[in-house]
């Protein structure tokens, strides 16, 4: 008898983006399959649009700063508006638009603060903006996996090149923070990896809080393999919303304070506390002090070797889970039976596929016009 062979699997080292794949799958496997596997566009890409907008504006601003195009900071508002408009047009040409003019205006206001208030302490430290990263990891053992290795990819927003003892105390607030965070590193040049997040500071008990820390540690591991790198000593996450928070950001901060799930709260008997406790719907949370907003916006993360290994192993396991789901779908031909769900209310509420998701708290018939009876209306999306 002549036995026909089985088809050889295509040799593949699957690429996994840290933010686009690994973090997304961790939020919800099924949603990840729809948005990343099938490339279905989310109906409300609010955070996606703002995230891309802030990255592109900051990249352009830093390049212009380094070339001295507009001189020292702060820049006139028209200059920043002009940069914003170029990026908005570019995103629109890629099919990405803000959901409302209110969101667009809020985004433009936030980049003004990011450039003119944060820029003077951040931009002088930048050695390189936008560094693509790629590393190769051994795929965790499992019979279902199609490859021995996987490629992990990412993009560092900024590398800062710092030697602390070249700065006087009080000369640069950011350096002072790093000095406090990394004692005994005064004379050695090192790098800090900076990552912007177009969002508020997450609750300390949230999944995102942990995932973003692992993300920076993984970036540090890859970065240190690049020939041009200095030792990476810390990661810095900048939560851009906190530089100019919205009412809903403040509302969530109040919830975090009540639940004891934030590490940065306004000090007692300060004007900041007063504003946080009293700001209500329809009011603008202007008046929060710059030190408080900066403190809320910045999170420094240690990148020591054991932490990196822990983060990498966590991500390896997530990749193995994705690979398992890929293999299951190929075998059984069912998307829903192959991809895990993660029915967390804050993920499900913005999910376009919740109506038929078996585990979603929002399962059931859609209701016109907005989908679900308890969904926030558009006018409540955010108030600035």
């Amino acid at each position, binding site marked *: 008898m002549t036995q026909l*062979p089985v*088809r050889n699997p295509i040799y593949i080292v699957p690429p996994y983006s840290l933010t686009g794949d690994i973090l997304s799958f961790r939020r919800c496997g099924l949603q990840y399959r729809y948005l990343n596997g099938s490339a*279905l*566009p989310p109906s409300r890409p609010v955070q996606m649009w703002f995230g891309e907008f802030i990255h592109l504006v900051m990249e352009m601003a830093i390049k212009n700063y380094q070339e001295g195009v507009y001189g020292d900071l702060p820049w006139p508002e028209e200059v920043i508006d002009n940069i914003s408009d170029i990026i908005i047009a570019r995103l629109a040409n890629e099919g990405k638009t803000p959901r409302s003019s209110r969101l667009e205006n809020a985004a433009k206001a936030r980049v003004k603060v990011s450039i003119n208030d944060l820029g003077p302490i951040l931009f002088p430290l930048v050695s390189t903006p936008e560094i693509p990263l790629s590393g190769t990891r051994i795929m965790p053992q499992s019979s279902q996996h199609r490859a021995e*290795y996987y490629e992990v990819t990412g993009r560092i927003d900024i590398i800062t090149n710092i030697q602390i003892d070249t700065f006087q105390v009080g000369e640069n607030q950011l350096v002072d923070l790093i000095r406090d965070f990394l004692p005994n590193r005064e004379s050695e040049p090192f790098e800090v990896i900076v990552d912007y997040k177009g969002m508020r500071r997450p609750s300390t008990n949230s999944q995102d809080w942990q995932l973003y820390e692992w993300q920076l540690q993984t970036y540090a591991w890859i970065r240190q393999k690049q020939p041009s790198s200095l030792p990476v000593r810390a990661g810095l996450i900048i939560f851009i919303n906190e530089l100019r928070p919205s009412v809903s950001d403040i509302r969530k901060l109040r919830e975090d304070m009540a639940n004891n799930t934030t590490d940065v709260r306004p000090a007692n008997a300060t004007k900041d506390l007063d504003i946080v406790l009293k700001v209500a719907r329809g009011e603008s949370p202007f008046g929060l002090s710059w030190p408080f907003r900066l403190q809320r916006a910045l999170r420094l993360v240690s990148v020591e070797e054991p932490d990196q290994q822990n983060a990498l192993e966590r991500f390896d396991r997530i990749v193995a889970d994705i690979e398992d789901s890929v293999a299951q779908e190929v075998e059984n*031909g069912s998307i829903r*039976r192959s991809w895990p769900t993660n029915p967390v209310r804050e993920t499900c509420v913005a999910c376009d596929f919740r109506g038929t998701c078996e585990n979603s708290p929002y399962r059931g018939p859609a209701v*016109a016009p907005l989908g679900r009876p308890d969904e926030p209306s558009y006018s409540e999306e955010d108030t600035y």
Partner: protein
Amino acid sequence: MISLDEFLEALRLPLHDRRLDSEQSEVIAYPPDQPLIVVAGPGTGKTTAIVARALKMVFVDRFDPASIMLTTFTKRAAAELRSRVLGWGYIVRDEFSRLIRDEQDLEYLSSLDINRFITGTLDSLAEEILGKYRRPDIPPPVVLDQFVADGILLTSGLFDNGLFRNEDLTAFAEGHGYTRSRQTNSVNVRGLTRLSRIYCDRFRHDVIDVSAFTACGPGQAAVARVANQYLSGLQIRGPNVMDFAELEHYFLERLQQGELSQFTSQLKAIFVDEFQDTNVLQESIYYNIARCINGCITVVGDDDQSLYRFRGGTVELFRDASPRMQTALGITSEPDIRYLTTTYRAPNLPVVFTQDFAECDADYQPSRVTGKPRVQSDESVGDGLPVLGIFRDNIHDLARSVARLIGDLFNGSGIDISWNGENVHIGAGADAQPGDCAFLAHSVREYTREFMGQPSSPRFPLLLRQALLELDTPISSFNPRGQLLSTVPEIAQLCGLMLECIDPHSIITGSISNLPPEARRIFREWRSAATDIIHRNPEPNHPTTLEDFVRSWQIQRSQVTGIQWPSELPLIDLCYHLLTWIPSLQDDPERQIHLEVVARAITETSMLSSNSYRSRIVFSDIQHKQRSVTQAIWNIFSAIALGDIEINEDILETFPRAAVNFLTIHQAKGLEFPIVIVDVGAHFKTNHRLQRVFRFPDTINETYLVEDNTIPFGGLSTASFAEWRDRAFDDLTRLYYVAYSRAQSLLVLAGLTSVLPTGRVPHVAMGWTRTGTSTWRTSCPFLRI
């Protein structure tokens, strides 16, 4: 230092102990600083050879991986190339790290970052490089999806200044086979868009002197004007907004002006795979880069597998690569050619069949690389199975017979054939699944298109799909590109429901005067499908129903107390809300691909017009509602109904193992399957003139006419090109050569008896030569079952 022998020895590890043959080894060992052309037949390990050569440059010659660029034609091929570079590179590095004691070597190995190899398609690399190495005041390129670019071609190229009614353009299109409507006395805009797109791309790809082309006649001038308006249309949409052809042109300009010297100064070697599908513009890019790096270029390809002339691929560039490269690089002698001729894909019998096919037409031989040796199977593999043929008198019997063969192989006890006087039993192994079998055809559409009032009718892929499902143990098939999107039942329901919600009773649709009748008919079918599903009251239907939801949209009254109907709503919201009642669109991978196309149409359409409603339905007043719905009907629903939006080939990366894969021959390029069934004429019952273009061309078609019209104004000598008929025959030979060489074990030809070599319907796939006889008539190279 690591020697070449040590490297080749270490490379056996990722190759599972297989030694490279002498031809592959020669390619790897060829001096790294000299240009090289590799001609590699199917399954001869071309990717293996170039990846190994690139890795050898790193481990033996100590090139920085970041100084080596590997590029190829498709995203799928680029992913495979990168996978091998990374996978093999790390295995070899770890092996050397284990074996080597020399401290300097160890230090070098530990400093190696294999991930820094530059890999990708030319377009993806151009976009990335232009984005990275640009002045801060120049925005990075924004590259539009083809569907969006075509929309701009329509609106800016044809509608601006009323060019779609231009008589010169209409007459020019008629000369290309398009028909003039009796009612409007012009060619329809879809036809004009298609023709204009071909010329716009050709102008760029072939580096055409458009002024000289324009001077040839009023039709040429008209199409050049369309192209010019289209380019202006791209420019007004934002700085550096471009299509893919423009991206390559822009990249070449930056290279020529030295603006990418920061990039080229870091580069030491470039590899180009699938070079046979390169066009003049791309060739110019590669040779410009090669000049910057002292000619350290390796190009790899196979002229017999060139399939993309219709997209601008120019196989003549590969055939003549040696002298062209010498001229472009300004070197004293022609670069060497190395051949890979031992195939590891299939045993002797199918390989001999495929090679005999390539050689059976004497008139095909001049179009091949001169002196190209014959591909042979690896001696250790043996003879294997003969090529089988299933030929039946009618298409229904043919579908049943092919389905039965697949059923017997995967569900039954196998099949018996008589070969060389012996009974041979063929069966699939215990681990085999229908996904080990591929059905390949020129087109895998399940229905014919409507034509001149003729309704669509079933095609062979549909009959085969049905016959597979009618087996005692049904077998499913995977054919997402087979169905017209508009006829997929779930898509019909979804689109019908959306139309019912935004335009109840077709009032707005009815008011659109120039909507194509075909679109109108399909809308009616969709609405009927929507009515059916509403009447079935699908789950979930508590506490509200689908009918409640649709009615609420129709009267614009919220189902939730206290919530006002908004002034505008994105159509994508409505699309996703309706999915609640069509669950298969969220569960079946094939249906998911169809849903992706609809969702893409909705979101990408928003870029077509600067005064667009951006795929939102506006309710603020009746005029805005009318306009926003009209725009959605034109840009989205009409495009879906008329099949203007294609399924993205890159989506089809993972084939389900439980289903027989239906693929076009173009899609199958680069893939291999244990069992391959090739449609060699399931529809060719008679020698019908309209079908001849697919099997025995006797009338020039658009691809060759456009080529003939543009070649004299491009960078290539007309002497490089054969007459159109020879090119058409050559391309058909290449198409079936690719199809036949996909089989790893069993190759089956399937068709009507009329296409048999002794039959009355000539077909290149069946050994017919352009002289009008089949070389298979006297000695049939397959076994009929």
